[in-house]
């Protein structure tokens, strides 16, 4: 019984460390590109999706499935709204 609990804790720790690696990689990627690069906003939205999924996995492991599910539903709408507003909007100097 103790070994089963240890195995579950080990799996939880592995998932938390994996999600922390992906969060650090997305933090590097989101500040890597210069602002004068053409259409860099879409790349940043894409990188933000990696961090979103890593945080969703971390929330699931930490025992908050309601938070993870609600963010899993809301995050694509928010990303699409930003990209849609940038495509059809008035900002052209980015």
């Amino acid at each position, binding site marked *: 019984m103790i070994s089963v609990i240890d195995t579950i804790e080990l799996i939880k720790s592995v998932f938390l460390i994996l999600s922390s*690696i992906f*969060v650090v990689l997305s933090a590097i990627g*989101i500040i890597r590109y210069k602002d004068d690069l053409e259409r860099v*906003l879409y790349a940043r939205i894409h990188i933000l999706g990696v961090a979103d999924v890593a*945080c969703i996995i971390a929330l699931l492991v930490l025992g908050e499935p*309601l938070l993870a599910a609600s963010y899993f539903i809301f995050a694509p*709408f*928010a990303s699409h709204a930003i990209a849609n507003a940038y495509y059809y909007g*008035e900002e052209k100097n980015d």
Partner: protein
Amino acid sequence: MNLLLLSQYILLGSLAVFAIATIRIATRKTIAMGLVGLSGLSIAVATILILVQNIYNIGFCRDIAFALVILGPVGTIAFSKVLRG
């Protein structure tokens, strides 16, 4: 030290780095960059609050995290509608 607690602290540190990166993105000159940065900052702070609740047993952090997870994307969508015009 417990392995799960150690991994939680590692995730806390990496989320702090990510929060600093998103604040730097949010202070760029265009509005869309601010939206991207704040969208990332809201989920980072929500996950940090859940971690703090798990590590230090502070119960109300979960309510703040839930409010952030709900209101962050809603505010982003609303401001995007304004930005589109």
